[in-house]
């Protein structure tokens, strides 16, 4: 699944470790999502959307 997580994170000048800490997951998880090698669970997707004050579909785009 495609996503613009890296761009949104960069806009806020957060590191991957910052975002991982905010989401309560490992940094490898953030790296894997940004590289589109890991599709997050629905609860984590909602949490990511809440963190960036937007909807899930604003961040994740189905292939």
């Amino acid at each position, binding site marked *: 699944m495609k996503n613009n997580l890296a761009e949104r994170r960069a806009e806020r000048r957060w590191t991957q*470790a*910052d975002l991982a*800490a905010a989401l*309560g997951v*490992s940094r*490898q998880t953030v790296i894997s999502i940004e590289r589109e090698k*890991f599709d997050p669970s629905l609860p984590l997707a909602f949490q990511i959307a809440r963190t960036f004050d937007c909807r899930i579909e604003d961040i994740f785009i189905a292939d």
Partner: protein
Amino acid sequence: MSKASFTSRWTPVHHYVLAIVLGVILTLAVSVAVGASNPDDFWLAAGIGALCAAYPAMSLGAKVFVSNHTAARDAHGEQSVELQWMRQAGAGAFLDVLVVIVVASLVLAIGRFDMDALPVLLGLVALSATDAGLRYVAIRHRALK
């Protein structure tokens, strides 16, 4: 926005000392127990027991006295990618062990070989642990490269 909550890369020296002390005590305990179970070759058995126990005992010491001060626990670790890697590695290792058991059973049945069960079971334990570990490392490497 909360910043990354890693506590520290290092912990006071006495924590490392306690970890080593715990590791040594556990290693010696296992070593003496193994040696006592083989009184004819006490020192050889104790040495082998110590070699086998040293790494897990030191790791336990590090987990108890060091890791709690150097690494933060993820609040939602169950949603981390590592869990998926572990599941993939475990599932792959299970299938590998299943294939090995089927092939080995066929060979033993056709060749009518007679073997002790203990070394076979220990071999299966070693195979499954090594297989799962290597698969985890490979999956992690592929995902992060």
